[in-house]
Every structure is written in structure tokens, then in C-alpha cells.
């Protein structure tokens, strides 16, 4: 009897111990994009696991397009593979509305949600609920070579116009010396060339859709945008530009082949880093150009961490999100890697920090982010949110198809008029199918 009782008690104790162990051993699976700042975060995971014993972290690091496919299919089919997902400002409003993400309104007070930059916070909020926490935010701006500008006898204003950009590109181009006045994105994709072109179109007063969701590519404003873009790239751009995306342009600029480059503000820390960039000490920054219509050609993007609805590990996931996007995390990176490598563009307090203000691109990044307004991206009113994208589920398909047409125009396979006509036709078709146009 006593032996039996003892055995029973022993077994119970074992069971209890087992439960304690399993409760402590929560493994978070985190899907993220293979950008430099995220890779750095993985290196610093020890700080999180030390502060949160019992939570282990497993990373799934993917290239942007693959990540998007994986997390979208996972969240749409309720696959439950990931507990934390890295998603952009395009996905958050759509997914939030569909109830695919857990609201982050109850993050701890130390997280200090009011410290987030208003433009970024606005892009991640649906009906007053914050659905993802920004890890880093970006806009776009002009990066240029001060030495080449000086040689050309020009001076870059802080807020240039498109006409000035063209003039400067012409003056800096030296094709025999393999220096091209301007490098811009040309690779087809809604997040590649269309990100740049939509933002540029905004400054020309063009919009994707009018208030009844009719595509606007047959309008004068888009025609002017695309004509000027092709003109710039054909005359002053590098060869093979129809397959250049962010990374291709980055390496062209770093090897001194570009006079100007209009792209994401996060590139600033790469082009000013002397170990990677041969032109580090010559780089200057300016706001994205305008056309005198009151809007600048800059975009707004934030890679953010969201938690899919239905995860079993909500508490742990929230702890992780709060850690990775906290002020302490910024301080941790600054201490280990220096202030220029801190994930930029998410918090007001970062830009008030006198240490960070010494970073050459800090002020211009903040100004660029503040110049973007996802709710009123262009001159005329629009029915959608998003600066360089339209936050509707159909946009990925339409944006990429339109991007293919414009990329074909850049490759010289069709004229600007034909590309715009084809874009108008296919956008109208898809919007009709999706039921926006009655």
C-alpha cells in the first residue's frame, strides 16, 4: 500500500515537473526578412532570452518576396507556422481589417506607444487598434555625390525639384568614365519599380484610382511622370537598368557609378559606411524632388512585427515584439554597433537624442518620413491609403502587372503611351473583376 502510494506520489510529482518544464519551454517561431537590421536583431536575441527565461526563439529568415508568400499563405490558411511575422505597412491595414492579426493596444506602458512617429503609427493602425509594431521605418530621399556636384558647378538644394534633378543628372553624366547621372529602380514589381514610380507620380499629381476606383493611367499626369522617368533613365541612367532593384542600385552607387540615387532612407547608412562604400565621404542627402504641386516624391514604409490571430503563444509573442521594438533595444544596438546602425524611423525619442542627431542622415530621414502622408498621398483626393502602394488585396497583382509594362518601356520594348494604355486596360480589368468598378 505504502509502496503504491509512494509510486503514485512520485508519478504525480514527475507529471507536475513535466508540466512546469513544458510551460517554461515556449519556442517562438519568427519569420523575418533578410535585411541587415533584422540579421542584427538575430545576433542580439540572447539579450531577449536572458530577460525572458523559458522562451526560446527560432528564426525563419527569408528574402522579401518569399517571406511575403510564406506568411500570407500561412496567415490566410490559418497554418499557424509562425508566432511572429515581419510584415510591411501594405499588409497591416488589410490583415488588421480581416481580423488576421492580434491587436497590440495592450503592450506594457514601458513600450511607450505615443513615442512612435505619427506617420508610421498611422500606417499600422486600423480603427484605433495598433496591429503591428514598427521595427524600422523608412521614406525615400535623394542621395547624391557632393564631389560630382561640385565638379559640375551645381549645388543641391535641401528640397530640389524634378527639373533640377534632370539638370544635375545631365551635368554629372560621363558615360565614358562609367559615371551615370542618376540611378533609379527599373525591375518590375509592386515593391520595386512601382514603389518609386508611384511616389514620383504623386508629386506629379497623378493617382492610381479616382474616387470611384477608376484607374487613371490614361491621364496627363501619369503620362508626364512616365515620360520624364524614361527620359532620365535613357539619357543619364546606367545600362541594364530595367533589371535594377534596390540592391543593384546600391552596389552601383557604392562603387561610384551613380551621381544621384533616389531610394529608401535606410540606404543612407550603407552608402556612408566606409567599409562598404568607396564614396562614403562624398555622399550628401536631400528631400525627394517635387513638381511645385505641394507633394514630394517620397514614400513611406515600415517593416513591422505582427502576431497572427490564433497563435498559441500570444503572451510570449507580445513580449518579444515589445522587446524588439522598444527604446531599450535601440540603446542596445547603439551600445554594441554604434548609433548609425540603430534601426531608424520609428521613434520620436531617437531623433531627440543628441547622440543620434550627429548621424549625418538622421535629420533628412525624419523630415522625409514626416513629408509622407498615407491618407492623402497625392494632390487630388483618393479612396485608398498608402503612399507608394494602394492598401487593397488586389494591389499586389495589379501593381506587379503594371510594373512589368513600365519595365518593358524602360527596356525599350514599347513606348510610354503603349505601356500606359496597357496598364490602364489591365488595371480596369482586374478592378472590374474584383467588383470595385460596377
Amino acid at each position, binding site marked *: 500500500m505504502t509502496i503504491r502510494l509512494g509510486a503514485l506520489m512520485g508519478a504525480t510529482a514527475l507529471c507536475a515537473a513535466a508540466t512546469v518544464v513544458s510551460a517554461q519551454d515556449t519556442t517562438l517561431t519568427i519569420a523575418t526578412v533578410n535585411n541587415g537590421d533584422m540579421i542584427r536583431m538575430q545576433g542580439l536575441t540572447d539579450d531577449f532570452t536572458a530577460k525572458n527565461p523559458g522562451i526560446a526563439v527560432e528564426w525563419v529568415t527569408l528574402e522579401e518576396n518569399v517571406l511575403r508568400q510564406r506568411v500570407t499563405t500561412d496567415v490566410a490558411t490559418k497554418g499557424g507556422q509562425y508566432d511572429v511575422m515581419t510584415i510591411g505597412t501594405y499588409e497591416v491595414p488589410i490583415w488588421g481589417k480581416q481580423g488576421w492579426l492580434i491587436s497590440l493596444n495592450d503592450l506594457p506602458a514601458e513600450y511607450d506607444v505615443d513615442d512612435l512617429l505619427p506617420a508610421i503609427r498611422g500606417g499600422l493602425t486600423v480603427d484605433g487598434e495598433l496591429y503591428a509594431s514598427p521595427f524600422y521605418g523608412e521614406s525615400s530621399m535623394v542621395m547624391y555625390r557632393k564631389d560630382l556636384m561640385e565638379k559640375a558647378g551645381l549645388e543641391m538644394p535641401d528640397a530640389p525639384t524634378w527639373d533640377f534633378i534632370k539638370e544635375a543628372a545631365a551635368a554629372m553624366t560621363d558615360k565614358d568614365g562609367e559615371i551615370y547621372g542618376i540611378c533609379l529602380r527599373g525591375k518590375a514589381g509592386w515593391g520595386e519599380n512601382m514603389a518609386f514610380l508611384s511616389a514620383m507620380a504623386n508629386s506629379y499629381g497623378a493617382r492610381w484610382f479616382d474616387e470611384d476606383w477608376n484607374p487613371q493611367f490614361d491621364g496627363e499626369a501619369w503620362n508626364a511622370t512616365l515620360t520624364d522617368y524614361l527620359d532620365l533613365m535613357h539619357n543619364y541612367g546606367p545600362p541594364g537598368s530595367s533589371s535594377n532593384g534596390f540592391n543593384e542600385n546600391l552596389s552601383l552607387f557604392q562603387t561610384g557609378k551613380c551621381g544621384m540615387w533616389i531610394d529608401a532612407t535606410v540606404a543612407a547608412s550603407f552608402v556612408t559606411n566606409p567599409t562598404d562604400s568607396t564614396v562614403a565621404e562624398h555622399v550628401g542627402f536631400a528631400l525627394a524632388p517635387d513638381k511645385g504641386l505641394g507633394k514630394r516624391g517620397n514614400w513611406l514604409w515600415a517593416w513591422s512585427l505582427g502576431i497572427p490571430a490564433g497563435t498559441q503563444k500570444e503572451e510570449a509573442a507580445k513580449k518579444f515584439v515589445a522587446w524588439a521594438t522598444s527604446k531599450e533595444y535601440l540603446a542596445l544596438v547603439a551600445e554594441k554597433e554604434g548609433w548609425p546602425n540603430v534601426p531608424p524611423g520609428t521613434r520620436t525619442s531617437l531623433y531627440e537624442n543628441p547622440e543620434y542627431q550627429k548621424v549625418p542622415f538622421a535629420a533628412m530621414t525624419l523630415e522625409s518620413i514626416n513629408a509622407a502622408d498615407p491618407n492623402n498621398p497625392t494632390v487630388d483626393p483618393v479612396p485608398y491609403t498608402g503612399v507608394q502602394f494602394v492598401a487593397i488585396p488586389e494591389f499586389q497583382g495589379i501593381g506587379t502587372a503594371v510594373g512589368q509594362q513600365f519595365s518593358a518601356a524602360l527596356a*525599350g520594348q514599347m513606348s510610354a503611351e503603349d505601356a500606359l494604355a496597357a496598364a490602364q486596360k489591365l488595371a480596369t480589368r482586374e478592378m472590374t473583376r474584383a467588383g470595385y468598378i460596377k
Partner: protein
Amino acid sequence: MSTQHSRSAARIMISPSIILLLGWMIIPLSLTLYFSFLRYNLLMPGDNPFVGFENYSYFLTDPAFFSALTNTLVLVGGVLLITVIGGVLFALLLDQPMWGQGIVRILVIAPFFVMPTVSALVWKNMFMNPVSGLFAFLAKGLGMEPFDFLAHAPLFSIIIIVAWQWLPFATLILLTAMQSLDSERLEAAEMDGAGPFARFFYMVVPHLSRSITVVILIQTIFLLSVFAEILVTTNGGPGTSSTNLTYLVYAQSLLNFDVGGGSAGGVVAIILANIVAIFLMRMIGKNLDA
């Protein structure tokens, strides 16, 4: 001697594996068919209504569909042309006795063992890149402008890459056929006064014709679904100039997350592949009867 009884017993015994095989084939196919009649987009949750042939009509009237269809046929045709002609020439060459024959044969066959993604990457970055590629280097050395292959001749570039991969396969099959050609008959023909061209066209080509049919058949099956090379090099662009049907289906289902449209595209691709297969089978049947 099988009795009525033992035959029906045998049928019962093998039925599990038959059912398994049928299920293996039929379940995915019928699911694809089922999805192709629904308006089903992963990004738009809610009910997925039955919409009849709407997905098909949208897929078939897609501005990219016609160019995808022609691109598919041009791709298959172009690669077949290069591999068959090149394969015959290589087989002729390798059939000659020469020094280092073994090594040469291995080198010729090697490209077939390179994975499609890898070979596409190598071609894209090391050969065809207009700034740092080998062809650009050669062009600059000859004082010419480097040619931007993937932007200005995308489909042609992909045909070259795919043909480079499949040429060894054709060579291998045709070389074996060549070796079964009796050399005494060739000698006899030579003694009767047949020149090299006559010997090639009246003796070698007829002898190879069956193997050529096999090469065409097998390659067509694989070439209709070329995908990795396009994804890695041109992404179907610029425009839709290197989009084939497989890539179009991929874009529908994984870039637009449109399950209905993608399934409809898949069914269309199956039907087209079957049409091609019927023609091929007839051709082969005729050839094998003769």
C-alpha cells in the same frame, strides 16, 4: 493455369494499390478542377462562391495569356531545334575515335547534372550581365557595346540557357544510337561511292530517327513546364516577353494569391499539354510502326 476464382482473388489483392494510385492521381486533379470554378482568393476571406467559367474566361482573356502561349511554344520549339541539331552534331563528333574520349564525353554530359536554378544564376551573373559578365567583357575587348541579353532578348536568352542544359541529354541518347550503327555498312556505302553528305542523310539520319523522336517526346514533356530559369533570370519580363504558361500560373496563384484563377490556369495548361501529347504520340506511333 488461372481459374476464374484465382483471377478474381488476384484482382482483390491488387485493388488497394490500384485505388491508392488512382487516388494519388485523381484527388489533386479533382481539387484543382473544383477550385477552378470558385472565386477563391486567399487574401479575401469569406465565402467562396461558385462562379462557373469566370476564372477560365479571365485567364484566357488575360492580356498576358496569348503571349504566354506563344512564348511557351517558341521556347519548346527553339530548345528542341538547338538540342536535336546540336545533339546530332555532337554525337557525330563524339563517335569519332579520339584522344581523351572518356573525359570529353563526361565534360559534354556535365551540364545536365547542374541544377536549373544554379545554371540560370551562373548564366545570368557570370555570362549575360551587361556590366560584369563574360560576354560584356568579350564585347568590350572587341570594341563593341555590351549587349544586355536579359533585357533586350529575354526569351532568346532563356532558350540558350535551357538548351545548354538539355543538349547533353540529346547528345547522350543520340550517341548511343550512333554507336549501334553498323560501321561495315557505312564502309560498304563509301566503297559504293557515297559521299559524306549522302552517307549522313541516307544512312545516319534514318538510323537516328527513332532516337530523335524519343528525344523530342521526352524533352517536350519537361520543356512545357520550364520555370526555374525564368524565375531566376527575368521574372517573366520585361513586360511579359518571357512569361510562359507555367510562370503565368505561378503569378496568378502565388503572386496574386488567386487560387481560383491559378487552378483555372493549371487546367488550361493540362489541356494544352494533352493536345501537344496527342500530336507527339501520333508522330511517335507512326515512327515506331515503320
